[in-house]
């Protein structure tokens, strides 16, 4: 019996295990998934927790509930991978052997990596919303916040779901307006990037949205430390941004066991071929979802499209055939704009987010890079799609490969 071991039962790991269980012979392959606990979080839902739209029950389900029959779930901390012995060692000493290993342990916010961030003001005036506990604590803090300076801050790229901090900002603006408090609150968006977002068309559009909402934008700001006593962010070039309420996105790092095992880069992501997701160092290790180093968004959407390509490749790879699937970095995400509207962006390694219609060219029904109610309804409906279709590895009628049809390409400047 051959052994496929999947580390991590999040979005990527669960989808991959379920899809492979259907395609791999049960008499030939055993599939085991390891995670530290049995709680699967719908992470995109965290965004709505601070504003009371969602609570814990909306975003947490049991992991094993989503794993198909014929997949074993092992609960335990991963201590390290020993690639030379094809073995994974758990924190309690258990050893799990593998023929093929899939690392899908994601990325996590690490406030401990910035001096002063998780000190005396952590969860008092400094919050994150990329953990359920953080989002819940922030919900409470927002209830009590009626004036002052709200600073939304990104520590360093790459981060998980890179549009979420902008979405949080738009939602906070809308929420404060709804409570009649917007005039008493100054909102500042602080980013290490040189604009609101990375790629030009989206950066210009999203930057315009900040401006319309009178949200101040502080760019090229790389935080060196947070001074919790004076309540200021201090950058490496000694600029200071004061705050009353700081909502930060801490440095994101891959799982610690990845670096302990010598499998990670400087951010503990596993270097892989960006088209096949096979480790560059080991022929029987793949890394999928946020855990790898591909130059795409760290987002469930990328994980979804990438897993479709990965499954075909994996089946070829274990047959000793060349892998013919090539992931193009395709991702799309809804971007909440506040006031029950949202934008949709669709892009890949080579094509930046552009305006147009999706998924059907010219027809939509969704509009790209434009604020509409339909997009917002799409975003809220996606939670059900996630639990019921995506995780179970059922097909979603969206092609993995990005299409240019229906997209408006800006004229090249001479």
């Amino acid at each position, binding site marked *: 019996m051959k052994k496929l071991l999947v580390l991590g039962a999040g979005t990527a790991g669960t989808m991959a295990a379920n899809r492979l269980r259907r395609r791999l012979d049960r008499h030939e392959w055993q599939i085991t998934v390891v995670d530290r606990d049995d709680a699967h979080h719908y992470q995109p839902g965290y965004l709505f927790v601070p504003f009371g739209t969602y609570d814990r029950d909306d975003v947490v389900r049991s992991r094993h509930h989503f794993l198909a029959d014929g997949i074993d779930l092992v609960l335990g901390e991963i201590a390290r991978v020993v690639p030379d012995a094809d073995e994974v060692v758990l924190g309690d000493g258990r050893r799990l052997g593998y023929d093929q290993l899939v690392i899908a342990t994601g990325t996590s916010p690490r406030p401990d990596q910035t001096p002063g961030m998780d000190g005396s003001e952590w969860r008092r005036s400094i919050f994150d919303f990329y953990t359920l506990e953080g989002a819940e604590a922030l919900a409470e803090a927002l209830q009590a916040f009626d004036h002052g300076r709200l600073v939304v801050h990104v520590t360093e790229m790459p981060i998980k779901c890179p549009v979420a901090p902008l979405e949080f900002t738009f939602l906070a603006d809308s929420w404060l307006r709804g409570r009649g408090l917007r005039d008493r609150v100054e909102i500042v968006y602080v980013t290490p990037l040189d604009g609101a977002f*990375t790629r030009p068309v989206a950066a210009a559009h999203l930057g315009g949205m900040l401006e319309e909402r009178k949200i101040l934008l502080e760019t090229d700001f*790389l935080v060196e430390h947070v001074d919790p006593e004076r309540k200021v962010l201090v950058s490496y070039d000694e600029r200071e941004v004061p705050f009353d309420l700081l909502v930060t996105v801490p440095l994101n790092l891959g799982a610690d066991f990845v670096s302990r095992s010598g499998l990670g880069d400087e951010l503990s992501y596993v270097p892989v071929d960006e088209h096949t997701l096979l480790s560059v160092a080991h022929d029987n290790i793949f890394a999928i979802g946020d855990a790898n180093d591909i130059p795409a*968004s760290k987002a469930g959407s990328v994980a979804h499209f990438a897993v479709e390509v990965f499954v075909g490749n994996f089946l070829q790879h274990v047959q000793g055939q060349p892998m013919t699937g090539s992931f193009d970095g395709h991702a799309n995400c809804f971007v909440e704009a506040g006031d029950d509207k949202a934008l949709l962006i669709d892009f890949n390694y080579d094509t930046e*987010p552009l305006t147009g219609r999706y998924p059907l060219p010219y027809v939509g029904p969704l509009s790209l890079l434009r604020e509409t109610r339909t997009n917002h309804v799409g975003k809220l409906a996606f939670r059900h799609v996630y639990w019921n279709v995506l995780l179970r590895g059922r097909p979603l009628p969206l092609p993995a490969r990005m299409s240019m049809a229906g997209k408006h390409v800006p004229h090249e400047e001479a």
Partner: protein
Amino acid sequence: MPITTIDGHHIQVDAEGFMTDPMEWTDDLARTLAAQIGIELTDEHWKAIRFVRHDFADQGETATLRRMSTVGGIPTKTLFALFPQKPAKKLAYVAGLPKPRGCV
């Protein structure tokens, strides 16, 4: 791809002026590029330039600030002092490497 002439060298650059062929780069060119953005190169600058050039040859990608500090041993604070405001971009520009790609 535009071609520009600096100090009598014809070099290929992208729309923002970043060199696109690392082989066209020379030490002299680095001094000229640095002067264009108001930087006079010291030994410390050269240490950073050598690291990112070497790392690019190895990895095929322009190093991030984090990589420069963790792998190259050059503290981020120092890089901000050497290449003010936008150290990753300015260093890539002077070292003749592609603009560091921001991940979406």
